[in-house]
């Protein structure tokens, strides 16, 4: 009975009453700053370079020239578009990890229009048709797992994931079908001379249309999720299906409808990728962005405006690390490490927002990130 135990030094408890918004953002900014410091130490320790120079190079990689700025914007818009598509599904707690496939089928639909209809349909109707078909293709790809979930309660994570592989195989088939030049095993740039089916320049910028489309979706999805009756239904179903049934919401219908919408927006992302960026199609058109966008959607807690910031940050890190890798002849791993450190801190800061850490001897001070 005399055995004495020491009290634990650190205790972690959940914040029950939430932090004020400014404090939460303070923690996030502090985390970003701390991550830059740690990165600087790593850079100095490993490659013995001036960290400020490296950061400068990263910045130049993303914003160094006018062209680079617009490529960064274009890729940000692409990632943002996918994240917007995922938002309603995840808000409904439907684990849609099938954005890759939904993007690909949208891209296939767009590419098919560009290849088969370039001689018969004029530019504006063609663009509208491409948009419509990519929406339909993506919507079908999203609707199928929604249908199976609603009717037979299949596991949507596995289902959407497997739909990705089907889409990739389909895409491989079309790449073989549309191969150009023969034997290259790629589709090549579609309509390089006529530029039919390419996004037109707006205000003198190649990618202005991408920005307009995605920002329209950003505002539209924000309003849809927050103020529409359907958005309210999505929120209730996501919180508790029992409550939804109790409130006379047709849960099956909501699941199928929401997944069709989610897939449709991802289909638009495929349209952007093919018609508004690469002007070709390949199995790597989605390129893993369907997964990266999951992080964007969750970090932003489905607020589409916050998603703009997060996609911009991720694309900036991506462009910056490519630049430092090539400029200083660094291995890819170093830039990946830096990206990893920064993401680690940003994700880690959510811990300090949701939990408080108390030290045994400190009275009631709250630990900061």
């Amino acid at each position: 009975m005399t055995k004495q135990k020491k009290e634990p030094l650190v205790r972690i408890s959940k914040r029950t009453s939430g932090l004020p918004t400014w404090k939460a953002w303070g923690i996030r900014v502090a985390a970003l700053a701390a991550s830059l410091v740690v990165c600087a130490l790593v850079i100095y320790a490993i490659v013995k370079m001036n960290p400020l120079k490296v950061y400068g190079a990263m910045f130049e990689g993303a914003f160094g020239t006018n062209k680079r700025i617009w490529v960064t914007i274009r890729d940000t818009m692409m990632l943002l578009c996918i994240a917007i598509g995922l938002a309603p599904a995840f808000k409904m707690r439907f684990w849609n990890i099938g954005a890759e496939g939904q993007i690909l089928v949208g891209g296939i639909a767009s590419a098919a229009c560009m290849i088969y209809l370039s001689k018969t349909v004029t530019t504006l109707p063609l663009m509208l048709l491409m948009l419509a078909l990519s929406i339909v293709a993506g919507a079908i790809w999203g609707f199928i797992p929604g249908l199976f979930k609603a009717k037979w309660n299949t596991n949507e994570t596995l289902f959407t994931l497997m739909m990705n592989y089907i889409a990739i195989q389909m895409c491989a088939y079309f790449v073989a079908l549309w191969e150009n030049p023969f034997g290259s095993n790629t589709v090549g740039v579609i309509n390089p001379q006529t530029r039919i089916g390419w996004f037109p320049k707006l205000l003198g910028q190649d990618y202005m249309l991408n920005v307009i489309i995605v920002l329209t979706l950003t505002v539209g999805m924000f309003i849809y999720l927050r103020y529409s009756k359907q958005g309210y239904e999505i929120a209730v179903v996501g919180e508790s299906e029992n409550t939804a049934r109790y409130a006379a919401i047709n849960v099956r219908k909501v699941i199928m409808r929401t997944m069709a919408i989610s897939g449709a927006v991802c289909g638009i992302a495929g349209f952007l990728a093919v018609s508004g960026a690469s002007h070709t199609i390949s199995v790597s058109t989605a390129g893993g962005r369907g997964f990266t966008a999951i992080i964007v959607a969750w970090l932003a807690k489905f607020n589409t405006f916050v998603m703009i910031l997060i996609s911009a940050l991720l694309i900036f890190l991506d462009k910056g690390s490519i630049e430092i890798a090539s400029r200083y002849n660094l291995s890819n791993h170093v830039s990946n490490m830096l990206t990893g450190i920064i993401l680690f801190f940003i994700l880690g800061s959510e811990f300090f927002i949701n939990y408080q850490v108390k030290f045994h001897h400190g009275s009631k001070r709250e630990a900061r990130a």
Partner: protein
Amino acid sequence: METQKSIKLVCITKTFGEVTANDAVCLEIHAGEILSLLGENGSGKTTLMNVLSGIYAPDGGNIFVNGNKVTIRSPKDAFALGIGMIHQHFKLVDVLTAAENIVLGLNENKLVDLKNVRIRVKEICDRYGFVVDPDRKVFDMSVSEKQTLEIVKVIYRGADILILDEPTAVLTPQETDKLFAVMRNMKADGKAIVIITHKLHEVMEISDRVAVLRRGKYIGDIPTGDTNPQELTDMMVGRAVSLNIDRTEPQNLTERVTVRNLTVRDIDGVKRLDNISFTAYGGEILGIAGITGSGQKELLEAIAGLQNIEPGASITYLPREGKQVELVGKTPQDIKNLGVALAFVPEDRLGMGLVGNMDVSDNMMLKSYRSGKSVFTDRKTPRELAQQVVESLEVMTPSLSTPVRRLSGGNVQKVLVGREIAGNPALLMTAYAVRGLDINTSYTIYRLLNEQKMRGTAVVYVGEDLDALLELCDRILVLCAGKVSGIVEGRTAKKEEVGLLMTHLGEGAKA
């Protein structure tokens, strides 16, 4: 030789975020004594005992056992000090036998000798008058048997200070008597017993001393013999409270809902409701009593269109004005579209009745958000309703935009009941409407139900506290294992009679 143990809690403080669950609470526990820890819900009784049994670490304060300061970091440490807690929700493994559950987690370094365990279990049972079959699987046991097993488990581990967290909440009156007899035996054997409860008559019956907590603060302790229920209530609530429910004579009884031959099977094909028939009248409160899990939930959900009903049943609803409607085979959407003025306060408040992460205002529109032709929701009307509910029912909330899961249990229930009553129901069904609520809020709910009764609503009240059922309801339908075991008059029925009907099918079974 067992030493006469005593425990002293000094200035125990425990906070959860901004909520102080225990504020410098001091308490003494003596061997050979039954101490009642009395307090309203949210007053910090369970938190304090969880600190003592090693589940929570206190933010401040000290614990002394026999005058020595101790630090309890885990339930294991607590057991080493002879402190054992029997939780409200049992911590047993269903597929194991009683004996296996008892030795589970003991971490003895040798092979488990179940034979020996059986002998020791039998010793314990004989000593205190328990009945436990060591070879019975837990899933075959009734609630009261499981509770007995939990107590034996704790004693087997050498506890001489037993903490029971609301042990009678799940028991019938007869089972409660048995438990109390066992507790007296343990007391006579020199064990210290703490019973957490908010039922005053039990406090008076079983305990030697009462300690009262209010809003996390220690109010005082008093020998049970020197006090009375009214004084204890005043200590608990902090001011004088009247403990009477106004039961008016039912007037203008009109048939509202008639259930005939209702049978419901669960997902495994087990009958949860078996051929239920009854009528609920507008202008009366129909109580539904029964052991938890006797089909109460299924009955209300069947009427609300949330259960699959076996063929051959009929549920006819007669509105205040208009033609009668058949509810069997209808979805909640259909029932809503038929204009049935149905209000339902389900048992699972945050898991079914409300959306925990939404604020009061958004929860107000849960059932009405469809109104209007616009694709957008109308935010103004629900906000006004939220404001009105918060004001008229005195809901304590920091603001209308606080998620309801952050509110206390009583305030959550006020929001839910407020919304359901605002729909002007002709039929109001409530499941365990006052479970976990403090005395004050409970009486607010009783008052609201009585108001509904007086304006001609048919009120169906599923309850677990027999005293409250007998004081509030005009008639009480008793369920036993999914069957109607009898329907008794609330004004004349005896508690024991209802208790018997809960466990044995009465002759009313065929009615």
